[in-house]
Each structure stands twice: as structure tokens, then as C-alpha cells.
């Protein structure tokens, strides 16, 4: 990973220097490069715009349109055609796959579809972009788009980003077109044209490299089409470049999958496999494809010399052939990828304090189990915070929690199972085994403590399980455009993070200063949890009653607020045992004075009266 980062840095520096030199050398190249930059900026703006609309709609469509393969495929085609960004579709697919909303076969179907959908870009550029004065459309789009971007309303802002994005795309294309036209007058690139297999392979490699650098096959295709339109490159070389761009585009998914779960990696693997195989088919059968393209062009009245449209046909055709050939093998592909990319051999965390030497001394043993349980809790709190999209370091600092929540609205997918197996399961099992080994029939005092500590470990594990249940909707709604829904989920995240912060403060205070009658202090936490639960339920009821959220969203929220309540209860129950170190008898007497559920409710009623 370190090597990869280093290579990336060196590569970026080299490209930077080369580009700077080229830009200084040629003003025409300047214009083409500016065109590519504006085009890429347009793509970013377009993605951002669509992202603000993905909430709810895209997710709902995704969940109902991926139960059958043809539906997944159709979803990939349509969503990519509409958004003109296969990267956005791929990234969303990876995040849904990571949390189990999609299975790998459906994910692969979407990726196949996205590959077809992305070919519509070439049609738009070749059929529309080059035929009209595209810059004339770009200007009003930019003006109106930016005006909308400045609005506070999220929908208008999103629309503005899309409009401005399209404006930038058009402007970028126009710059590239003009750049190539003047470039042609000074340098004739066709003198570097290569024919035969050598040309095919070299230009495919150039296509791959250009797409890897720009991380957008769309941008490469625009460059190819504009250069082809002014005959700066030959038709054959343009075909090879298109094949290369199709292979190079997998880099976005590969980079995205580096930090994703194994499912994400498998999907990126499927993407790479599909594009490489399709590329190979196109390379091997390029002559046959050229013949078929000519036939199609002839059939649909495309002029024989209109190479840009013929390139668009070629682009669609070889992707279509790739899909047709590989569609029946999806299930085999799934098996292959599951075998090739197994869940990583997880390095399981081992207990640190449980050793055989402590077994002989009951008090030491209880202390060892307590310390290990604190460690288990620390690992669990990290998992819980990462699942709700927060950094443990920030939550346990003095930063404003509300601000932290707002800053991290988009929750990255986090593999709770992997984290549980790595940081919790090994320690939890060791604690249980250690307690079971200890024979305390002769010493009831320590036996009681160990019983409570075992219960505390169980509470920690239960809290993680409830967090996993909560994760699904949390991820789903982080894209939602209904702010009433996102506000409620932000409350959920805030309350969990706030409790973890309070508990950590309590633990540190108890550790350093010691906490007399500490056990009784937890009744304050318990009343607070009950109040928060009541307030949240009342708030959800009101939102449903006032039609601010759909009943389905309401029921999800009710379930998730109940998971949150359970998580918090488990954490407080754990802390009652683990954070309080006192004489056994005193703790037992304190336990007698802690308030039960009815008594807690009575306290709350007294306050309300």
C-alpha cells in the first residue's frame, strides 16, 4: 500500500511536470488541455448534482430493479445513460454491495449495463456535440446553472449543479474541438499514425494510459472523437484508442475498491474482467467489427466518411457483444471471483491481560478480566463509531459533536462483520473461556464479579449486533433528500456518539480519581436514555401524522430508534460493571439502591409534573 501511494505520488509529479512543459510549449495544446480540464470539472459537477438526487429515488429503484438479471442490466444502462457517469453508478453499487443490499450477481449485472450505458456518451458527442455550435448552448447553461447552485433549496442546487455540469461538458468539448482544429494547422498528428497490429496495440495502450490518468473514459472518448473529427488521428487508431479507454476505465472501480470490503473488490474484479475480455474480443475481431459497423452505418444512413458516428457504433457494438457473450457466464464469474478474492485472512486480536499466572490469584484474575473487558469495550466503541460514520479520535476529542455529525453526512460503508471478527470475537471468546476455566466454587466473592463481567462482555457484543442492524438504513438514508428523515438519523448518530463520549469521560475520571458511589451515577444515564427514547418516538409519530415522512420511512425509523435504545442500554449496562472498581460488598449494596425501571419512570413523571 505504501509502495502504491509512493508510485502514485511520483506518477502525479511526472505528469505535472510533463504537462507544464507541454502547456508552455504549445498554446494549441493549452486549449485542448483546458478543454479536457473543463470537461472533467463538468463531470464532477454533474456527479455532485446527481448525488443530491440519489436520496430515496435511486435506492428505491435499485432495490426493486435488481431482483432479476435483466433488471440489473437495464438499471445499469438507464442510470448510466441518464447520469452520463459510470463511475457514480459503480461507486453506489459498491456501497450497496458492501452492506448486503445487493448480491454480487446483481452488482455484476449493473456493471455490465453501465458499460453499455456509457457508450451513449460517444453518440451524444459524435451526433450532437460536433454537429452544432455546442459552446452556444454551454453559455446559458452555465449562467442559469450557477444561479441555481447559489440557491439554498437542495433540489434547485442539485439541478443547478447538473445544468452547470452539462454547460462545462459542452464548453470543454468546444475547447477541445477548436484546439484540435488549430493544432492541426501546426502539427499533423497523423504522421504518427500506425497501421496493422503494432498500431492497434500501441494505440490501445495509449487509450488505457490516457483513461487511467484522467480516470474518465468519457473524457478520453471526447478527445478521440474531436481529434478524429479533424482527422488528427486515423479511424483505425481511434478504434484502438476506444478499446483502450474501455479497459482503462476500470481504474476508477479498482481505486474505489482498494478501501472497500471484499464484495467491493470482487465487483471491481468483475468490472476489470469484463472490460479486459471485451477489449480482447474487440482487438482480435477488429476487422470483422469494422465490416459490421459499415453495414450498420449503411443501414441507418450514416455517411461512409462520418467516422465519428462510426466510432460511436463501434463503441456500442463491441460492448454489446461483450455483454452478450459474458451474460450467460455471470454465475460462473461469481464463483470464480469468490474463490479468487476470498475474505481476507483476518488477523484476529488476541487478549492482552488474560494469562495463566493470574489464574492462581482470584483478585488478580478478576482485575485481568476487567482490564480485558475494558479493551473489548474500546474496540467495540471504535466499531460502533465507524459504523455510524464517525472517527473515534474526533468523538473522543473536545470537538463539537453536532458539527462532526454534519461534516460527515455521507457515511462510508464499513464492514462490521470483518471488524467484529478481527477486534472483538477473539477477545470475547478468550474472556468467556478464561472465566469458565477459573474454578471459584470455593470463592463466591470473585465468582460474583466474574458473573457480572461476563454479562458486560455479552452487552458489548449485543451492542455491536444492534449497530449492524442499524447500519443498513443508516447507509440507505444518508443519500435521502427528505431532511426530516436525515435529521432523525443524525439524532440517532448524535445520541450514540454522545453516550460513548460521556462514558469515556466517566471511565477516565473513575480510573484517575476513583468514583465513590459510581454505580448509582448510572441512574442519571438511564433516565436520560428513557427520555431520549420517548422524545424520539414522539417526534417520529408527529412526522408521520404531519405527512412529513412516509409511513414506511416512519416504521424504519421506529425500528432503528429501538436499535439505538438497545445499543445505549447495553453500553450503560456494561459500564456499570466494568468502569466501577470497588469493594465487592459495597458494590452489592449499591446495586440494591439503583433504581429499577418503574422507579426511573416515577422520577421522570415527577419532573414532568
Amino acid at each position: 500500500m505504501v509502495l502504491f501511494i509512493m508510485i502514485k505520488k511520483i506518477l502525479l509529479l511526472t505528469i505535472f511536470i510533463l504537462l507544464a512543459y507541454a502547456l508552455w510549449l504549445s498554446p494549441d495544446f493549452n486549449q485542448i488541455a483546458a478543454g479536457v480540464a473543463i470537461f472533467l470539472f463538468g463531470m464532477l459537477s454533474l456527479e455532485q448534482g446527481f448525488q443530491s438526487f440519489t436520496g430515496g429515488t435511486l435506492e428505491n429503484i435499485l432495490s426493486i430493479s435488481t431482483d432479476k438479471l435483466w433488471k440489473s442490466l437495464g438499471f445499469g444502462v438507464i442510470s448510466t445513460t441518464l447520469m452520463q457517469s459510470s463511475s457514480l453508478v459503480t461507486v453506489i453499487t459498491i456501497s450497496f454491495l458492501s452492506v448486503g443490499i445487493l448480491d454480487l450477481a446483481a452488482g455484476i449485472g449493473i456493471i455490465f449495463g453501465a458499460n453499455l450505458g456509457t457508450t451513449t456518451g460517444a453518440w451524444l458527442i459524435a451526433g450532437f456535440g460536433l454537429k452544432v455550435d455546442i459552446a452556444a448552448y454551454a453559455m446559458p447553461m452555465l449562467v442559469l446553472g450557477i444561479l441555481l447552485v447559489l440557491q439554498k433549496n437542495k433540489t434547485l442546487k442539485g439541478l443547478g449543479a447538473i445544468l452547470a455540469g452539462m454547460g462545462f461538458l459542452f464548453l470543454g468539448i468546444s475547447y477541445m474541438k477548436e484546439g484540435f482544429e488549430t493544432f492541426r494547422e501546426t502539427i499533423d498528428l497523423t504522421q504518427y499514425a500506425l497501421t496493422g497490429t503494432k498500431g492497434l496495440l500501441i494505440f490501445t495502450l495509449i487509450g488505457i494510459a490516457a483513461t487511467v490518468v484522467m480516470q474518465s473514459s468519457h473524457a478520453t472518448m471526447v478527445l478521440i472523437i474531436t481529434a478524429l473529427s479533424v482527422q488528427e488521428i486515423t479511424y483505425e487508431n481511434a478504434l484502438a484508442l476506444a478499446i483502450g479507454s474501455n479497459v482503462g476505465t476500470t481504474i476508477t472501480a479498482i481505486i474505489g475498491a482498494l478501501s472497500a470490503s471484499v464484495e467491493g473488490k470482487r465487483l471491481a474484479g468483475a468490472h476489470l474482467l469484463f472490460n479486459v475480455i471485451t477489449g480482447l474480443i474487440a482487438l482480435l475481431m477488429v476487422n470483422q467489427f469494422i465490416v459490421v459497423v459499415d453495414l450498420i452505418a449503411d443501414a441507418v444512413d450514416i455517411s461512409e466518411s462520418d467516422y465519428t458516428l462510426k466510432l460511436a457504433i463501434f463503441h456500442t457494438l463491441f460492448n454489446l457483444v461483450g455483454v452478450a457473450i459474458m451474460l450467460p457466464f455471470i454465475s460462473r464469474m461469481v464463483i470464480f471471483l469468490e474463490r479468487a478474492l476470498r475474505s481476507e485472512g483476518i488477523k484476529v486480536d488476541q487478549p492482552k491481560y488474560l494469562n495463566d499466572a493470574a489464574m492462581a490469584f482470584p483478585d488478580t484474575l478478576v482485575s485481568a478480566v476487567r482490564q480485558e473487558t475494558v479493551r473489548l469495550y474500546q474496540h467495540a466503541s471504535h466499531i460502533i463509531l465507524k459504523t455510524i460514520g464517525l472517527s473515534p479520535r474526533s468523538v473522543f476529542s473536545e470537538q463539537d459533536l453536532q458539527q462532526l455529525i454534519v461534516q460527515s453526512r455521507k457515511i462510508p460503508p464499513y464492514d462490521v462483520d470483518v471488524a467484529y471478527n478481527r477486534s472483538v470475537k477473539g477477545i470475547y471468546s478468550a474472556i468467556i473461556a478464561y472465566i469458565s476455566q477459573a474454578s471459584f466454587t470455593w470463592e463466591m466473592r470473585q465468582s460474583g464479579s466474574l458473573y457480572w463481567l461476563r454479562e458486560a462482555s455479552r452487552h458489548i457484543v449485543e451492542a455491536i449486533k444492534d449497530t449492524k442492524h442499524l447500519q443498513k438504513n443508516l447507509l440507505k438514508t444518508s443519500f435521502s433528500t427528505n431532511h426530516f428523515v436525515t435529521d432523525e438519523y443524525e439524532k440517532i448518530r448524535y445520541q450514540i456518539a454522545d453516550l460513548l463520549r460521556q462514558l469515556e469521560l466517566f471511565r477516565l475520571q473513575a480510573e484517575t480519581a476513583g468514583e465513590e458511589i459510581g454505580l448509582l451515577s448510572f441512574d442519571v444515564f438511564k433516565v436520560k436514555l428513557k427520555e431520549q427514547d420517548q422524545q424520539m418516538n414522539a417526534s417520529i409519530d408527529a412526522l408521520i401524522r404531519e405527512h412529513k415522512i412516509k409511513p414506511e420511512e416512519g416504521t424504519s425509523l421506529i425500528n432503528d430508534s429501538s436499535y439505538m435504545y438497545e445499543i445505549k442500554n447495553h453500553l450503560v449496562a456494561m459500564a456499570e460493571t466494568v468502569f466501577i472498581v470497588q469493594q465487592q460488598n459495597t458494590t452489592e449494596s449499591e446495586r440494591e439502591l439503583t433504581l429499577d425501571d418503574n422507579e426511573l419512570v416515577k422520577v421522570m413523571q415527577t419532573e414532568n409534573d
Partner: protein
Amino acid sequence: MGKKKLLKKLQDFFDADQREKERHLSDIKRILKKLKEKERKLQKDLELCGIGDKCEALKQELDIIYAQRMKGVKIVKEIKDKGKGKT
């Protein structure tokens, strides 16, 4: 030391149950004392805090401590009653 007193002391010494009760009683009384101290401290804080969320939290904590103290007083009473042979 009189015979009666000596006998009582001996009886107490062997009466583990009684000893446990006394220890229990002293534990609860000690906790009640701590709770009372905490209650006084919180009351002072409340007088200084004025109005706001912090005050509400203090009031709530005071209510909880009061409920805990009442529960403790009840337990003390029960232990004492049992000692006197009341049911």
C-alpha cells in the same frame, strides 16, 4: 464485664447472620451519607446555575439521588425492623 454481656458478645461472635446484617446496614448507611453529601453539593450548584439545560440536568440528578436515598432509607428501616423481630 458481666456474664450476660460476655454471653451476648460470644453469641454475636458466632452469629454470622447477624454480623452480615450489621455489615449490610453499615454499608447502606455509608452510601446514604455519600448520597446526602452529593445531594448537598448538587443543590449548591443548582442555586448558582440560573436557567438552562444544565439546570434541568442538575434538577434531574437531584430527583434521582432523592429517589435512591428514599430507597436506601426504606432498606435501612427493613433491616432494623427485622432485627427487632418485626415482619
